[in-house]
Every structure is written in C-alpha cells, then in structure tokens.
C-alpha cells in the first residue's frame, strides 16, 4: 500500500520533471540568437567605423585650433573659420521651435485625447496628423517659402533678407516637428490609466481640473521626452532650411547690429555649415573642418538625447 503510493508519487515526479525540464540548449534557438547578435554587431560596426572616420578627420582641427573652432564665426580663411554662427542660428531655431511647437502641440494633443468626441472628423484629424509626420522635410521647406517667409516679411520682420531669416526658419521647423509633438504627447496622455481620471471625477473635479492636476502630470515624462527628441530633429534638419534661403556661403554678421538686425539678417545653422563646407573646393574645408563641424553637431544631438533621458528619469521617478 505504502510502497504503491510511493511508487506512484515517484512516477508522477518523473513525468513532471520530464515535462518541465529540457535537455540542453535547442539548436534552432541558438542559431537564431547568434543571427540576431551578428546583425546587432554589424550595425554597431558600421556606426563605429563612421564615427571613427569622422573623429580621426576632425581630430587635427580640434588639436590645433582648440576652442577657437567652436567660438569663431564663419570665415573664408580655413585657419580661422569656426562654427559659432551655425551654433547660434541652430539655437535660435530650436528656441523658436520650443516656444511654438511645444504649447501648440501639447494643446492639440489634449484636445484630441480628452475633449474631441470619438467621431469620423476626429479620426480624420488624427490620421492626417500621423500622415503629416511622415511628409518629407523638404516639403515643409516649400511650405515655409510659400507662406512663412512672406508672412514674416508682411509683419515687418523681413529685415535685410526679405523674410528669409532665422524667424521664418524657426516657424518652418516648428511646423515640421508639430505633428511629432502632437503624436508623442497624445500617446503619453492616452497611456494615463482611466482609473486616475475616474478618481478625479469621483471627488467632484471638473474636466480641466482632472486634466491639469492628474492627467498632464502623469503624462509629463512622455511629453517632455518626446519634445526634446523633436528639438534634436529640428537641430539636425538641413533640407527645409536650404529651400527657405539659409545662407550657404560666407557672411559676416555686422558687429554693431542690433538684436533685431541679427534676427532678421542672414543666418546659418550647424548642419548647413557642414553642408556648405563639405562642398568647398578648398581641401581644408571639406577634409578637416566639415568633419569637425559634424563632431560638434553630434555632440549637441547626443547631449539633447541625454537630456531627454535624464528628464524622463527625473520626472518619472517621483512616485
């Protein structure tokens, strides 16, 4: 009796053990893992080779010129030319993007997610925004040329460039990233659980109180991360700027110009500097200065991405 029970237990144990353990790694899955690893390594190798090539071409410039390469403005002389003009232009563009695209984009996302009724019109708007995010950037350049440049000129900010200035560039870039800001913000808002909204309404909060006190704070990490990443996008775009008349040659911003003159005068941006230097016939520009400018551009972009990650961790880690 006892032995029969023991035998049965032993048989069950053996059967269970057989069912839940497997003998060694399976060949198929091992091969698949190796394949994935190889693909990953390959993409890393390509990236690393690219970075190494650029860094080695750029190295002499930084070694010889030091900070003056970053701090100097544009110049015809490769020995003194620097990227400062481009950095300033890009920063102003990024600033305009931030103050235009962020509030408009977040407001649009709040409307779409929290207020708009779920009907065909809303779905149409939603789909359109998604499609806009996929429109090639050069198309936004044409839009800027056709609309924003004349508008900037029309409101008296044309200056010496007739509207082809950094203000029009900033507005164009804001339009370019706006769909992305809307999509990422809407996604962040949608991921806030409904139970939190219920809790807010349950204690008698109005819709706006629920949104401002609970939904937006919970969605903030996602919204901020998305927004900073779109700033990085605006920082790196070149094509639309070329269409709306960024300076690709050399110009010297007048030293005694007022702020308004500088904002409405000729401008350039960091990626445009890379673009125009790499087309120069003087070897020094194309071979050493352009790679160095790329290093500066990449540094800024990595810094922005790092900032986005930091911001997300900081705002998310609160609770």
């Amino acid at each position: 009796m006892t032995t029969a029970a023991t035998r049965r237990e032993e048989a069950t144990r053996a059967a269970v053990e057989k069912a839940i353990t497997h003998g060694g790694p399976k060949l198929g899955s091992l091969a698949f893992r190796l394949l994935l690893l190889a693909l990953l390594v390959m993409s890393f190798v390509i990236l690393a080779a690219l970075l190494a090539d650029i860094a080695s071409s750029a190295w002499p410039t930084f070694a010889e010129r030091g900070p003056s390469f970053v701090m100097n403005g544009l110049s015809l002389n490769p020995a003194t030319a620097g990227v400062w003009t481009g950095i300033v232009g890009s920063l102003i563009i990024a600033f305009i993007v931030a103050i235009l695209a962020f509030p408009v984009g977040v407001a649009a996302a709040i409307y779409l997610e929290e207020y708009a009724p779920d009907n065909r019109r809303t779905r149409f708007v939603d789909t359109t925004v998604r499609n806009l995010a996929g429109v090639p950037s050069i198309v936004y350049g044409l839009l800027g040329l056709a609309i924003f440049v004349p508008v900037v000129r029309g409101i008296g900010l044309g200056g010496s460039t007739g509207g082809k200035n950094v203000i029009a560039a900033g507005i164009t870039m804001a339009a370019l990233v706006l769909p992305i800001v809307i999509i990422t913000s809407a996604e962040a808002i949608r991921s806030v659980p409904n139970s939190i909204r219920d809790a807010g309404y349950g204690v008698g909060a109005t819709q706006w109180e629920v949104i401002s006190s609970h939904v937006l704070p919970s969605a903030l990490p996602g919204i901020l991360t998305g927004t900073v990443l779109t700033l990085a996008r605006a920082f790196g775009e070149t094509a639309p700027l070329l269409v709306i008349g960024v300076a690709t040659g050399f110009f010297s911003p007048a030293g005694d110009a007022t702020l308004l003159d500088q904002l409405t005068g000729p401008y350039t941006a960091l990626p445009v500097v890379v673009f125009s230097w790499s087309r120069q016939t003087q070897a020094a520009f194309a071979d050493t200065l352009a790679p160095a400018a790329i290093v500066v551009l990449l540094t800024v972009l990595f810094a922005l991405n790092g900032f986005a990650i930091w911001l997300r961790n900081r705002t998310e880690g609160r609770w």
Partner: protein
Amino acid sequence: MADRIGTTVDSVDHTRPETLEDASPSLAATRSPRVTGGTPSDEHAVILELSDVNAYYGDFHAVDSVSLPIREKEVTAFIGPSGCGKSTVIRSINRMNDLIPTARIEGAITYHGVDLYAPGVDPVEVRRRIGMVFQKPNPFPKSIYDNVAFGPKISKYSGDMDELVERSLTRAALWDEVKDKLSDSAYALSGGQQQRLCIARAIATSPDVLLMDEPASALDPIATLRIEELMYELKQEYTIVIVTHNMQQAARVSDRTAFFSVDVKEGQRTGRLVEFADTATIFTNPQHDETEDYITGRFG
C-alpha cells in the same frame, strides 16, 4: 482584538448557505456584536429614488427598468451575479457613466426630489455631493496627503487642511499607519491601505452619499473587517450604497438589500432588479425563488 478578528475571519469563511439560513432571524447578530443588518425602521427619509432606470451601452440594453428608494443614513447593498449591472446602476447615481461615451441612462434618479438627469444639472456638483469609492484602489500618483487634500482643495475648502486630512484618515482607520509618512507616495501603500486611502479621499469632501463599488473585493479578511466597521461608523452621518459579491458582507453591513439578476433574451444579457427589501427579509425570507437560490448558493 485578536479574538474579535478571529470570530470575523471565521464568519467570513462561512460561505456555506445552510449556515445563513439557520442564522435567523438576524443572522449577523449571532456573529458579531456589531449588528446592523436587520429590520430598519422607516424613519429615515428617502434621499435617492431610482424610477424606471434603464441603462444602455450603445445598442446594448444593459439594465432594464430599475426602481428603488435609497434612504438616508442607511447602508443599501446591491448584490447579484457578475454582469447583472450593479456597477452600471451605482455609477449612474453620481453620473460617472457620463464619462463612458456609449453609455446612456433613461428614467429618473432623484436626489432630494431633484432629477439628477434633468437638463442643466452639473455632474461635477452631483459628484461633490455623491462621492464614490471604486472597486480597484485608484489613488492619485501623488503623496498620501495630496490624495486626501485634492477634493477639498478644488471645492475651495477654507478650514484647516492639515486637520481635515488627519480627520479623514482617522475616520478611514488609516491615520496611525501613515501619520509619519504623509508626504510619501500613495503607491507605496499596500492594496488594503490604498483602498482605505481612497475612502479617506472620498469622505474628505464630506459628501452626502457614499457609493462603494465592491470596496473590499481585493482585501484580506482583516482589512475587509476594518472597512465594514468603518461603514458602520460612516452611516451615522452618510448614506451608503455598496456593491458586494460577499453575501456575509451584505448581511453584516447593510440595512436594505437589492438583488439583481440577468435575463438572457435574443442573445442580450439584460440585468434587472429582482427583489428589494430590508436585509433580514432578503436573507431569511426572500419572496422570489431566484433570490433564495442566489443567496443560498444554488444560483446558476
């Protein structure tokens, strides 16, 4: 204390129907010194009246023609099988269903004689008077203090906020456990503590009526007992409507019980009110076989 918890845990485990029937006339009386189930007098005024309430989700007729009065300073329990529309009905009382785009309510729910669904009624004002505790604890992702203070803050409470927070947490039997960590995240609390925090949050705005949708479904017997004790205390001042799947709980805490059931016709599962009476009657002398089958566990 240990002794009392022991008794209650014991009684919570008594899910066998026979015990229920034996324990007449007031079955709760034999278990716990805190008997509230029984034959309530009619001295309490009707505060909420549901008349012919039909609920729809889109084309789906979820609840058919529910009529029942809810009296002041009593605990009214909604019981019935899953999907019979208890949550739908309780949510319609403070217009939480407005938040579900497809939901639609027909019929009238009057509060002190005023139709809550009349045009011009502000659901926000309704919810300030008729508060709600949800089935799943849903604290705000904020500090314990801010969770309780949010409601009073938006309704422009002018008194001493610290004192109100302490009072609300004390009444929800949570103060001693959290008084040293009021600025900690509410998410750091256990599930039972979170639910009591949600109750504290709901009573901080001093609503007239407190709706509780299965407030103890995720809690262990001890936390459940504390919430039941709390309900007993709260009903001295508030009117409470509670949804529960726990027969013992309904018997212990409620004065009146509404039993809902589901009819299946043409593939639609429509909930309806089968029987509404004082709790002792429902549990000891139900008028409908359906009710008896359900409370004795022979349902389905």
